[in-house]
């Protein structure tokens, strides 16, 4: 008996070692597969903002709260707004870092970007589509062959230091909503703006406000204005002259779902059973 065990144990140990070795290689193969489907250039930038669900109050007034670190930071390069006049060919803000959290009722989005000077007219905005219709990222302007919908814009300006909830459907149609659901607070330190926007995930105005259902992806875009004045006293960036991104993705994460672990455990059981039956049958077949 002991002799038999002496034979089996080393074999089992090496077998486990071989199996584990292969399993560590497996994720590398899976990653290669993912790279094929990712959009080009995605190594340099994010494609999505993911807001994990947290317990306790959201840090609406505190961009430096520790809980922000539980959200993965997304990074989006920004372009000067060149899409329609009056355009600019160079904007101050080149990159935007975004984190987001939600507590099942409210969502908080933190924008973080470098701006060498603090100015009263420094501003930032987040844009969403409203409803099922697609909207162009430039203020929901009309499209020739597609019937577009409106956009919902959450706006913050340093001198007011509050959130403004707005809608637009085309250039020159920007309108402040009669009901304000968005709060915003900006903090400037060490050449960096940190602006936190908060709003309930769902509101009572689905025709004007974007509705955020957990688990699903929605479109998101950003804009930033450097409110610095030039020598003649004119604002460097204002109105359509700003740094922008086109549409990316946003998701408020659904509460954790462990069902895939159960399915995996059942699958391992079935596979073990299959092996057992197969080997039994093969052994019987041989001895017969």
């Amino acid at each position, binding site marked *: 008996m002991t002799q038999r065990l002496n*034979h089996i144990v*080393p*074999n*089992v140990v*090496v*077998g*486990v*070692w*071989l*199996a584990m070795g*292969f*399993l560590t290689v*497996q994720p590398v*193969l*899976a990653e*290669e*597969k*993912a790279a*094929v*489907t*990712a959009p*080009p*250039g995605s190594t340099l930038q994010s*494609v*999505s903002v*993911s807001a994990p669900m947290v317990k306790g109050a959201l840090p609406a007034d505190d961009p430096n709260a520790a809980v922000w670190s539980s959200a993965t930071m997304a990074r989006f*390069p920004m*372009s000067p707004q*060149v899409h*329609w*006049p009056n355009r600019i*060919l*160079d904007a101050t803000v080149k990159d935007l870092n975004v984190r987001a959290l939600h507590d099942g009722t409210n969502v908080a989005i933190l924008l973080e970007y470098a701006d060498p000077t603090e100015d009263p007219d420094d501003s930032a905005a987040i844009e969403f589509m409203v409803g099922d219709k*697609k*909207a*162009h990222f430039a203020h929901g*302007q009309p*499209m*020739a*062959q597609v019937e577009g919908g409106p956009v919902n814009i959450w706006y913050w300006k340093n001198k007011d230091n509050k959130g403004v909830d707005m809608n637009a459907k085309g250039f020159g149609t920007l309108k402040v909503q009669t009901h304000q659901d968005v709060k915003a607070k900006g903090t400037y330190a060490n050449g960096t703006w940190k602006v936190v926007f908060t709003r309930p995930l769902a509101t009572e105005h689905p025709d004007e406000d974007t509705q955020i259902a957990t688990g699903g*992806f929605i479109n998101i875009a950003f804009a930033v204005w450097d409110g610095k004045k030039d020598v003649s006293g004119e604002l460097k960036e204002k109105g359509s002259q700003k740094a*922008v*991104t*086109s*549409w990316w*993705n946003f*998701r408020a994460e659904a509460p954790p779902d462990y*069902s*895939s672990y159960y*399915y*995996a455990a*059942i*699958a*391992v*059981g079935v*596979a073990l059973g299959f*092996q057992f039956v197969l080997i039994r049958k*093969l052994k019987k*077949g*041989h001895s017969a």
Partner: protein
Amino acid sequence: MGPLIKLIVLNMVVYAILKFMVPNIPGSAPLPASLVFLYMMLTTSGFVIFATVSAESKEAFWGPIQRFLTGEGGGGLQALRYGVLILFPLLVGWQTYNSTAVSDAPPSENRTIHPAPPGEYTGLSNPISKTPDAIQQGKGFYAAFCSPCHGGNFDGKGPASRGFNPPPANFSDPTTIAMLQESYLFWRIKKGGVGLPIEGMPWKSAMPRWEVELPDEWIWKIILGEYDGAHQAPRTWE
């Protein structure tokens, strides 16, 4: 050489060809992992059919597999056998987890990069003669209006391109303007991103609608300058 070894060697050769040789054929591209897997499955199935046509060849093929699985094969392979017996259920579990777990990736969007233009923009010929003067003028307009995004080198990497998704087209890439007619470029420049049909996802495009700012003649000259600068020629009617 046993048939099993042959099968393994054959699959390794197929993998090496698909992975390292095919992408290097001019005009080809790296194959997706799923396609490589499919070809290897086909190779394996073909080999199994071939190896099991007669009773002797069937025994030569399945015999070693059966002896390996039942543990009759002898000492040296025992460790490998336990490895396989542990690995197989774990892989099944892993695959099940992957296919049922909620994906972190946003839904993929199949955007058509070059959708069909409206009828009135097909087959138009450039009314501007391709003279050195016209090309030069076109390049000047290109530098002023297009190069901030499409780049001074016509490579789509202008300083204003970085925030846009999809990125501005790279004209030096043989799969962009070299595949298109001048009339197609005329449509895309004149009507811009918002002129695209739904499959082109017009809501994402940052391409300006230049008809509100530039006369047609300038657009035609830009097209001449663009092809010349990017060292490409427009596609013509075959």
